[in-house]
């Protein structure tokens, strides 16, 4: 019967109920978006770093991976030293550089190039074709489009350009073996990958046996932090950074986002509470006589409290469900805008939908809805019955 009364009350003022639900939906959408924003970048960065299964990155001493032009000398010996540890399952050296694709006109298309171990690499995902072998290369879509080439084409690439002689240096003929998506690079950034030895050779003496970083996969069950400390002791010329450390650093840099999201989320929650609280209070004020009569005929205080609080909870729940859908749509739209900022890794998302975040937002709103109805409910159920009836009769 309580449910019947709740439904009757809410459907009795359809316009007001719909407006309340719409208001709560907007508030809920904002809250959900803020919850998604507060964890989205962190989680997508965590996913980015962990997706390829490398727990440690070794960079030149005092640098972060690809933070500077610095490289690790004696890459072969360094990799061999790392492989001495039984706690290290794999070492994948990576060299970063630039290649040029000369055109007949004398100009060229330039691109980021990564020298990798194709069997172990964690920098790209192959979309078609195969990993590059000797004298082979893989391109991303941006580079394929810029160069007008396709998988299977053979072309000349150069490792540099001599402005005095006006010619490209270290030309090599390579075949495009595949099409790839580079996980750490921006979508619009032109990129290619080839075996590390080939890129080292393109760079001449300056790049001989050099690597920008080494990605390390720990052995199953190994303590990553212990491995990091072992590297620090064994190889003093490099810095080892664990994924956990990198994520902590990212979290620190993203604290602004989290604070912003927390404040906006809190504001939206308060707005939702005030909205529902106001509407339930108005509804109770309109029905003071009705509640006095219900109390007079023996309806218990707790029944009336339950009815009023349930009305608030239903408004909040309906608004929250609508807000969930609205929040997902707006988050998707906002994410599309934000990820198109130049230079952002392709795999980074600002708004990441996580069921836990959605449930958190819904639970917060549900509790807020019940809380919003609590005071008006208590007021409605605690009326001085005789006085209200007397005033109603007057």
């Amino acid at each position, binding site marked *: *019967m309580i449910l019947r009364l709740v439904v009757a009350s809410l459907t009795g003022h359809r316009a007001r109920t719909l407006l309340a639900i719409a208001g709560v939906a907007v508030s809920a959408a904002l809250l959900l978006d803020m919850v998604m924003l507060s964890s989205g970048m962190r989680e997508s960065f965590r996913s980015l770093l962990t997706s390829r299964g490398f727990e440690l990155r070794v960079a030149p001493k005092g640098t972060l991976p690809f933070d500077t032009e610095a490289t690790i000398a004696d890459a072969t010996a360094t990799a061999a030293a790392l492989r001495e540890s039984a706690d290290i399952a794999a070492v994948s050296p990576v060299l970063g550089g630039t290649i040029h694709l000369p055109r007949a006109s004398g100009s060229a298309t330039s691109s980021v190039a990564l020298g990798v171990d194709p069997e172990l690499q964690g920098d790209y995902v192959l979309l078609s074709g195969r990993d590059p072998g000797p004298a082979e290369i893989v391109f991303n879509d941006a580079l394929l489009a810029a160069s007008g080439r396709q998988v299977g084409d053979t072309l000349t690439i150069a490792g540099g350009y001599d402005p005095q002689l006006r010619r490209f240096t270290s030309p090599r003929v390579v075949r495009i073996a595949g099409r790839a998506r580079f996980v750490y690079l921006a979508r619009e950034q032109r990129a290619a990958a080839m075996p590390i030895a080939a890129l080292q050779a393109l760079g001449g003496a300056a790049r001989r046996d050099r690597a920008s970083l080494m990605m390390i996969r720990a052995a199953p069950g190994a303590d990553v932090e212990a491995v990091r400390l072992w590297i620090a002791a064994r190889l003093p010329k490099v810095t080892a950074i664990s994924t956990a450390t990198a994520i902590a650093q990212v979290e620190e840099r993203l604290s602004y986002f989290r604070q912003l999201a927390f404040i906006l989320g809190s504001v939206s929650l308060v707005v939702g509470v005030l909205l529902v609280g106001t509407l339930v209070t108005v509804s109770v004020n309109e029905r003071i006589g009705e509640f006095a009569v219900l109390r*007079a*005929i*023996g309806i*218990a*205080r707790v029944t009336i409290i339950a009815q009023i609080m349930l009305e608030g909870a239903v408004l909040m729940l309906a608004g929250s469900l609508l807000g969930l859908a609205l929040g997902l749509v707006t988050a998707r739209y906002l994410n599309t805008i934000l990820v198109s900022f130049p230079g952002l890794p392709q795999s980074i998302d600002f708004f990441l939908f996580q069921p836990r975040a959605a449930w958190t937002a819904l639970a917060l709103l549900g509790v807020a809805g019940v809380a919003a109805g609590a005071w008006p409910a208590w007021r409605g159920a605690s009326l001085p*019955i*005789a006085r209200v009836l007397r005033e109603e009769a007057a």
Partner: protein
Amino acid sequence: MTGPVLRLAAVERRYTMGSEEVRAVRGVSLEIDSGDYVAIVGPSGCGKSTLLNLLGAIDRPDRGHVYLDGRDVGALGDGEATALRLRRIGFVFQRFHLLAALSARENVELPMSEAGVGRSERAARARELLSYVGLAARERHRPPQLSGGEQQRVAIARALANRPALVLADEPTGELDARTGSEIASLFRRLNDDGTTLIVVTHDEDLAAAAKRTIHMRDGLVVRDERSAPIRVGPDSAAGAGQR
């Protein structure tokens, strides 16, 4: 009659209206027997409705005691008083006070639902009661679809829902025209003939004339208490529905 169902001992009740203190009931003592039909009459503001609220445990005396079935109503906690009103007292109001969103039957079922009566049992009893007040065909109608007289009959059926020991009515014909008021008066007589104890506050002379006992109030005091021989109507075919 089988002894007093209600007893008032030197009951006083004051309340403030604006800045003024109103002594609504000033030391009223009386007994009301089970099965009686009592009309409380008097000019407006004489304390009739306040007395009715005290009898119905929706208000508490400032002094004195109200005993229902031997229990001191003033000493009950809110929960006990609420349960007493639910199970032992039926209320009929001047303005009917039905829930507009519920059908006639649902309005009658409401106190039974609160009392924990099962769905099928309360539906059957609600139908029986609506039939008793002559509204069997209107059970699905909502109050706005009913006339004033019909709404008051639904309110009477609601008052009888949990088989109360007594029914209290505050100006039950106050919002009705003379003919409809007369129908309600007849219904009350029938109800009393079927064994329901009735206490009615009224300005309606016809309704008061139907009572077995008339209590006259003035300035918060009982000034006359007389037992009369009311005009009786014959027993109805649905006799006893209110107390079964």
